[in-house]
């Protein structure tokens, strides 16, 4: 159930992401012109053309997780990350899979990655922090876990 909720949440986030296409450059021309860009424009995240694709991989990962094949779930999730490597939601889900698999080192690394990539997006960041709380619990750092939960569960309201 928990996994399913995560997947739904992640899917929602994927679909709601802000989009801006990357600058296309010819595949063969060696005479491509200089790509000019206004220095003062803050860039929005790149296009998530991979939304549908990563969503289907998340569903397969969930199925694998439920049929007690965490290794396979991780393979699906890594494939999703490869398609959209700056997507914090995918890194959070990957962290959770590693947590479920007892690999706390990777779980820790990935959830921190998710937090960094979520940047100022409070919802993505909150989901990642709550995953970190679970990891801290698994590491026996219950006080820290509780304090993280207190802080980020409150943000929901």
């Amino acid at each position: 159930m928990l996994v399913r909720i995560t997947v739904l949440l992640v899917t929602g986030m994927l679909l709601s992401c802000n989009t801006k296409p990357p600058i296309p450059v010819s595949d063969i021309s060696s005479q491509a012109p200089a790509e000019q860009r206004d220095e003062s424009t803050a860039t929005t995240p790149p296009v998530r053309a991979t939304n549908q694709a990563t969503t289907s991989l998340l569903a397969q990962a969930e199925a694998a997780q439920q049929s007690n094949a965490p290794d396979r779930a991780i393979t699906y999730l890594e494939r999703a990350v490869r398609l959209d490597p700056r997507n914090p939601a995918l890194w959070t889900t990957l962290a959770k899979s590693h947590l479920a698999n007892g690999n706390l080192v990777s779980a820790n690394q990935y959830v921190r990655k998710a937090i960094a990539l979520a940047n100022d997006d409070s919802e993505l960041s909150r989901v990642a922090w709550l995953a970190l709380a679970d990891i801290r619990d698994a590491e026996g750092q219950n006080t820290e876990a509780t304090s993280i939960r207190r802080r980020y569960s409150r943000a929901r309201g």
Partner: protein
Amino acid sequence: MTKTKRRPTRKRGSSSHKKPSILWRLLKWSVGLVLFSGLAVIGYLIFLDRNITSVFEGRRWSVPAQVYAQPLELFPGAQLTSGALQTELQRLGYRPDADLSNPGTYKTRSGRLQINLRAFRFMERARPASIIEISFTSRHIDRITAKSGELSLIRLDPAVIGSFFPSHGEDRIVLAPDQVPSLLTDGLKSVEDRDFDKHMGFSVSGILRAAMVNLRAGKRQQGGSTLTQQLVKSYFLDGRRTYERKLQEVAMAFILEARFSKEDLLTAYVNEIFLGQNGNRAIHGFGLGAQFYFNKRLAELDVAEIATLISIIRGPSFYNPFRHPQRALERRNRILNTFRRDGLIEAATLASATNQPLGVVASPTRGGAYYPAFMDKVRAELNEHYDIRELSSQGMRVFTTIRPREQENVQRAVTHTLNQIEKDRRLPSASLQAAALVADTQTGEILALVGGRKGRVDGFNRALNAERPVGSLIKPVVYLAAIESGMQLAEMVTDEPLTLQPKYGEAWSPKNFDGKFRGPVPLIRGLAESLNLATVHLGQQIGLETIQDRFAALTQRQPKNRYPSFMLGAESLSPIKILELYGNFASGGFRTVPKAVIAVVDEQGHPLTHHPFEVIQSIRQEDVATLNRALEVVMAKGTGRSSPYAHAGVAGKTGTSNDNRDSWFAGYDNKRVSVVWVGRDDNATTGLTGGSGALRVWNEMSHYHSIEPLIHPPSEHLTEVEFSTGLLATKACADVVLVPITDRSKLEIKPGCGIRHSVKDRVKGWFQ
């Protein structure tokens, strides 16, 4: 005398006495002899049987581990044109076919591309062969449909990029009986052994026929060996040609025939037989033969290609289709005629097949993708987990990160740019060498790795093993340490001469590249213009130890040079170490270890090892964002400004070692981090700076893919300051750059720009 006398007597006597029994005695002797020989033969056969049957029964060919590239992912929205996808398909050995009759074929129909995808066992699951249809917009995939409906994601089968064959050199792909096309087995019988289905391992008529042919020709033209004998020869015996060995061969063939089915023997033959040599790699079996000569799977070969492979058996070097195409073609056509004679093919097929060119790949190394430099990295990573004997024998499958399209583009950029530079600067042809690496900024997975200007030569791997002084590539570490100590990019540092006198050793007086000095400059300019004096002054202020500690933490490598010249890059590093260093910046503050292996599975597909991404937080987010912005300014206004991509949203740094021996560039956008080195193997000067050498290679690399601009911190954190002075200014009144400034109150205002500190800033200033 006595003897001579006695002997006739005895002889006479005996002959007279046993005369009627001479025949009997002869018979007895003969029977004895026959019995004895029979027993000896039987004994020998039993002996052989014991020896070879168990070996053959438990036969497990050493199956070298197969190494796969990353498969190309297809999904709606993917930036891929129909033409580019067709190029990819051809690289994988897919061929156009209006009927899509077999997996491994494709066709175009009114702008759409239909592909009969091959079955493939991926690391997590097997995908059966299937037909898909893809429609495109001008630059992207629009829709993918299959029988089952619309697809959101599907991948091509990955390219095989190599295998770990053992030291004796035998490389092979082992096939099961149902993977062997019937035309191949029938063709083999037709050409090599017409009595195969009837004989017991050797064929008297075959030997006689061969003898007749040889007699008529006056030399040895036919061997008269059955397929079983050929198998025995290849499997059990050495290459000597003696009568004793021939007998042994016949006896062994006899035993194998008695013990095993015809199908078993034929499959063994198909997997065993030697089909060619490529350097120290021996091509065994038709599975690998099909890949080596045609870049296809055996099941996908057409009639003419099967005939070509069969033609090679008789003399892999004499009928080598690469070296002797005409000879190979003639023999292929003779074999096609034999096929027709024996009713294996129709007359029309014969006509079209004989008109077909040989159709082998362009060169021996083109049998599939071949990237020896990347394979070195794969080998190095696998060596941590596996013995080379396991890798060369147990049929493992290794999934790796390389993207062939990216690899080919980077290699092309390296080769082409070096040729161009040599031409432009009238340097001796082929005097320059290079290395280049590209990795994903977030996962660290290596997408391309080039170890020299000739990609298909398995030689010195400069990307992994050439440790060269890195010059200014090291400077971002100095500026990072400054940022981490709380300095801002608009703060001033002195660009003036200085002499450092260490406790031991000579005094050191660094100089700027132009011998000039600029007085006080803001940090951002010191880095962008790569000012040596400003950097050393700054480094002295921060402390060499702090800087070296940061370097060690970011690269997991202790500096060798413990002197201040370290700050200017008097430290030798390999390109892959530089990739690791810059991965910290490109990823947004994570030590992102470059890796090549994703997973290894055993012959049955069970996972053996999985190599997860390694992303260890190493720099505070605010600090790395500031450094990234500074390295973006390097491109826009500093030593990277000659690049056509200077304003495209990329960050980077050039590096040049003393006397222009090494030309470096490291750069990244949102997606890829790359490192390029250009220099000479004899370490002589090239006259190239980082900007005129390595950066040019990177420019060409970037033409082949789209730049994904770096993400900036939100604009409210960015401030306009004058590039040359670090004063607060605006675009209207000065040459400004946008940099993250945490505390504007510290900055002075450029007069005449009409800027005033906000009340908040002024209040803040009072408390400084």
